[in-house]
């Protein structure tokens, strides 16, 4: 069976596939939903107001559906507009939680922290970031270029300059590394 037979057999219509890359932003009340949708639309994001599934309802029966991978950029924009979401969740698995598991590897002179699919490595003696690896979103090479060569204190937080879930995961690794390298 060729690629295209297989592809046609599993034609990507609207169902699961089209929802799999969408997220839900939850808010305190409907007026915040409307403001958030307006802010995000004005910024060029493909968003819409939808009803959240019962298991994640917070009292407000509307939520904003957004491109899941771009969560970091969207959260920052909403916070700047003073309409921060209560929570941001995947549409296809609203009860899924972000990875909280960190893996730490000691190379002797260097320390590596992994969060989800992102790894950050620093030189212990100086706190200088020497490598960033993992991830697949296009802000990863951009973030690596901005971080490598700087100390943890000098470097911008990936949460502030990243745009995607990979950037968010790198931000978690950055914060964990900062915690580990701080004098106790």
């Amino acid at each position, binding site marked *: 069976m060729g690629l295209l037979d297989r592809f046609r057999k599993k034609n990507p219509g609207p169902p699961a596939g089209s929802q799999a890359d969408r997220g839900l932003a939850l808010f305190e009340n409907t007026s915040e939903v409307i403001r958030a949708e307006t802010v995000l639309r004005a910024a060029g994001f493909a968003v819409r107001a939808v009803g959240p599934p019962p298991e994640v309802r917070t009292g407000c029966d509307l939520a904003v559906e957004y491109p899941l991978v*771009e969560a970091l950029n969207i959260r920052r924009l909403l916070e700047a507009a003073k309409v921060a979401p209560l929570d941001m969740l995947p549409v296809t698995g609203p009860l899924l939680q972000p990875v909280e598991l960190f893996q730490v590897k000691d190379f002797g002179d260097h320390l590596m922290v992994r969060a989800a699919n992102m790894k950050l490595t620093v030189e212990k003696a100086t706190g200088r970031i020497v490598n960033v690896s993992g*991830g697949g979103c296009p802000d990863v090479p951009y973030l690596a270029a901005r971080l490598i060569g700087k100390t943890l204190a000098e470097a911008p937080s990936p949460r502030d300059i990243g745009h995607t879930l990979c950037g968010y995961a790198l931000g978690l690794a950055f914060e964990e590394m900062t915690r580990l390298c701080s004098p106790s």
Partner: protein
Amino acid sequence: MLAVVGAVPDPVVPVTEGVVDLSGLCMRVAGLTLSPDRGTPALLLAAATACAALSLPAPYAFLVGDEGRGHGSRALYRHLTEVLPGREFSTLVFHYLMPDVMWHDKTLFAVQDMASRPRLIADAGFMYAAKMSGQAAAYDLFTPDAGELAFLADETAPHPFYTRGFILHEENRVPDLIARAYQDENAAATLLVKGSTDYVADASGVLFTVDGPSEEAMEAMGGTGDTLTGIAAALVESGRPVPEAARIAAHANRLAGRLARPHPGSPIAALIPHIPAALASALSDHA
């Protein structure tokens, strides 16, 4: 011809395409000079270096600048849907692009309209989109690392960031995760799982493992997975069966790492010049 699709971390770079012009470590595409620090340029340079070593034509590249906002990726997706049906490539590699299910599907439909089917390799963001779209089985090769394999194995996860903890904890049980990924059709025909041991697998299970030589520092280096995918792509382009290409690539990438004698702060550019010697050695070992 082998073609590579991906983003570069400079948002001002427009959609750019052309044959890779390689002179040592200096790489240009349609007048654009690329620094092979990591990401798609690292994959491209590794692929071009391996193609030269295999006496294959230099690869073709479709590139765009994208710092993570997705505008560049979507422009490149749009371009691909317009031009791919009229092009001929024998191997297509999709790499760092904003994961977007709608554009993934449109791109795959454009591939469907090509005169002959190229072998399809996906890694990084495009691999995420392929899994999310439910079309992973349409691909010949995915090259995930252990964390990304856990994402493929978790049928509910829409991104590695949401991989469930009980699956992430099973990193030392790679064969089980491979089986789980195939069970839900979230894997390509062949998987090359990058890690302390590299695994080559298909739906029947693990075909090969490669665990030497071992350079621990490579785990921390950004770009070692990109060079591995680039070497594998060149070997696929040479006509070898995909599992064999993946096995030789895994060995060659490790040999290049050994020759580079890296430390955790080494840049990937230190490894790439060793690819020709490493590839020759790996090919000799697997002859």
